[in-house]
């Protein structure tokens, strides 16, 4: 997807958390700019502040120092243009699949008919037709994460944030979901054109993203910023693919 104008940027962001055992600095002077249409993956060891960056972009967290600029303006409250896909799905167990997908639409002023239509569209897009009245307890992990994805897409956000979306799934299910995500992403009707995904898996980042930001271990700092110039679908056995793996690995290590 073509790289468009600037969508958001982090400017000299430092994030500290106050814990009972003392202050912890999770991010230290992190700056980067994201353009519309980019699929960015953030990789790094655990504790490097990867998920914290997503929370900053979603406006759920205010930086201790520095600022997040979204479409030219400092972000001071919850970013309604962002939607999140969580590692542990974040589904409400007492609601059906359709009700879970509809959840994010109610505060957005859509009437009932428009909401139902939106729900049907995104349930179809992620391959969940037939599961509308199922409860999360009746679903496999792969189907639960499809619900998480449909719920995020249904609000038609400008930016999709994904926090380790495949890491609580078994190996084969995550292969399937990555494959289908590429399918959805390459669809012209895809409502979102900017994605920021956090992962600890280097290969997953290279398989999916246009650009990989590498964070060093705590406190997280940008240790590398790489464009992935490989055609999709990407083949892990490709020499160029393994060169990217080696490069990112050496940046983290």
């Amino acid at each position, binding site marked *: 997807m073509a790289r468009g104008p600037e969508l958001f940027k982090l400017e000299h962001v430092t994030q500290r958390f106050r814990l009972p055992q003392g202050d912890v600095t999770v991010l230290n002077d992190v700056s980067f700019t994201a353009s519309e249409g980019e699929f960015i993956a953030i990789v790094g060891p655990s504790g490097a502040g990867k998920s914290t960056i997503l929370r900053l972009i979603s406006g759920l967290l205010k930086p201790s120092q520095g600022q997040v600029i979204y479409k030219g303006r400092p972000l001071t409250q919850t970013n309604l243009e962002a939607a999140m896909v969580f590692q542990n799905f974040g589904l409400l167990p007492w609601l059906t699949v359709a009700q879970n997908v509809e959840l994010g639409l109610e505060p957005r002023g859509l009437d009932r008919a428009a909401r139902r239509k939106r729900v049907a569209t995104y349930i179809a897009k992620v*391959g969940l037709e037939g599961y509308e*009245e*199922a409860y999360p307890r*009746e679903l*496999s992990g792969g189907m639960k994460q499809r619900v998480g994805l449909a719920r995020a897409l249904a609000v038609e956000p400008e930016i999709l944030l994904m926090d380790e979306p495949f890491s609580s799934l078994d190996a*084969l*299910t995550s292969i*399937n979901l990555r494959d289908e995500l590429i399918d959805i992403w390459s669809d012209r009707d895809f409502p979102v054109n900017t994605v920021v995904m956090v992962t600890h898996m280097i290969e997953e980042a290279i398989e999916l993203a246009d650009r990989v930001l590498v964070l060093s271990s705590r406190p997280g700092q940008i240790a590398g910023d790489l464009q992935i110039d490989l055609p999709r679908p990407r083949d892990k056995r490709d020499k160029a693919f393994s060169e990217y793996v080696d490069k990112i690995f050496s940046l983290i290590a």
Partner: protein
Amino acid sequence: MDKPGGTTHAAANESNQPLPQIGISEILGLVELLRAKGGREDIYKLARELQMEFGDTLTVIRAAELLGLVHTPGGDVEIDKAGDEIGRAKIGDRKGIIHDQLLKLPVFNTLSGFLKEKEDHRASRDEVLEKLAELIPNENAEQTFTTLVQWGRYAELFGYNDDSETFYLDTEASA
């Protein structure tokens, strides 16, 4: 039912095989992985690469085989025509292929016929469990029911409402 291909594959369609407790996403993942590997791989190597228990890997392969997507010559697993088709298909078109494959399985076919004969195309959970006990006598009907619902929902062949414990033919899609 005449099926070309491996002997195990043909056998899978002749009798009422137990349904493994495997979700559709795992089966699709296996098919996608095999396609990326040129269509065939040694099962032991596959398990090692996936860091999965050998037995667990075999269960997924058995499920894909039951659906006619792969077969298992020697110690290998090889993709079948339907498997290759599903691997190529877009998300929305995958359901149709699974739908057709499910109807080749006696359990799904018989239950689909059973529901069609009913005026409202509905049955209670207990009725279905009883039917399953007849069809696959030596298996845990509750476990089979779970897979039946999961696969049936994906293929839009069957629907199930857990509140009312009603199992029904998803006529909108199967009409």
